[in-house]
């Protein structure tokens, strides 16, 4: 998937992946895509909740080994 910005949140524990995602998205224009990689096992549920609460669409979420990859679209 194409993305405009990438955020490496690997090795960071809750709430940093969400906190940094929100910050990264705030600097982006509407419609742009952010790729986030994380190792926090709670990030799957957290990203879904974040997406629903903030209206930034979660385009996809996947697990690759111990890493989680998310694509979010800035609203």
């Amino acid at each position: 998937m194409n993305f405009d910005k990438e955020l490496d949140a690997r090795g960071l524990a809750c709430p940093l992946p969400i906190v940094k995602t929100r910050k990264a998205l705030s600097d982006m224009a509407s419609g742009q895509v952010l790729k986030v990689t994380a190792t926090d096992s709670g990030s799957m549920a957290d990203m879904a909740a974040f997406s629903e609460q903030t209206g930034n669409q979660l385009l996809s979420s996947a697990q690759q080994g111990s890493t989680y990859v998310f694509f979010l679209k800035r609203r």
Partner: protein
Amino acid sequence: MTTKKMALIATKGTLDWAYPPFILASTAASLGWTVQVFFTFYGLQLLRKDLSAIRISPLANPAMPMPVPMPVLVQALPGMESMATMMMKNKMKSKGVASLEQLREVCIESDVKMIACQMTVDLFDFDKNDFIPQAQFGGAATFLDFAGGTDVCLYI
């Protein structure tokens, strides 16, 4: 989608109790919520400019996971509190958990309103200059004014 509101009351000042209010506040702020935290009694310690004095004691903390079982009398020995604090901080660092300073900074950047209990300051003769400039001083009524209209109100 109306903005959700959350009010927190932070009453504890040890390392383990410092995390819940800062994590909840910073996460809610990241979700776009309006958040206010009222720091009272020992919670006021969390608003000090210098957070290095925030500690955790192994004593009377039977739920704290210990690498080695430790008798209570040993936990009371000089230096044990410093060691427990250091070990806890190191563990958090190695697991990628944010420091208190980091989380508080996130709260400040996300416009989380942090209210310091004026009564507690008076009670313990604290110096206002020891606290971060972003803290506003107020009383219970100030806080309840906001708390009454929130979706989530938690006591920590």
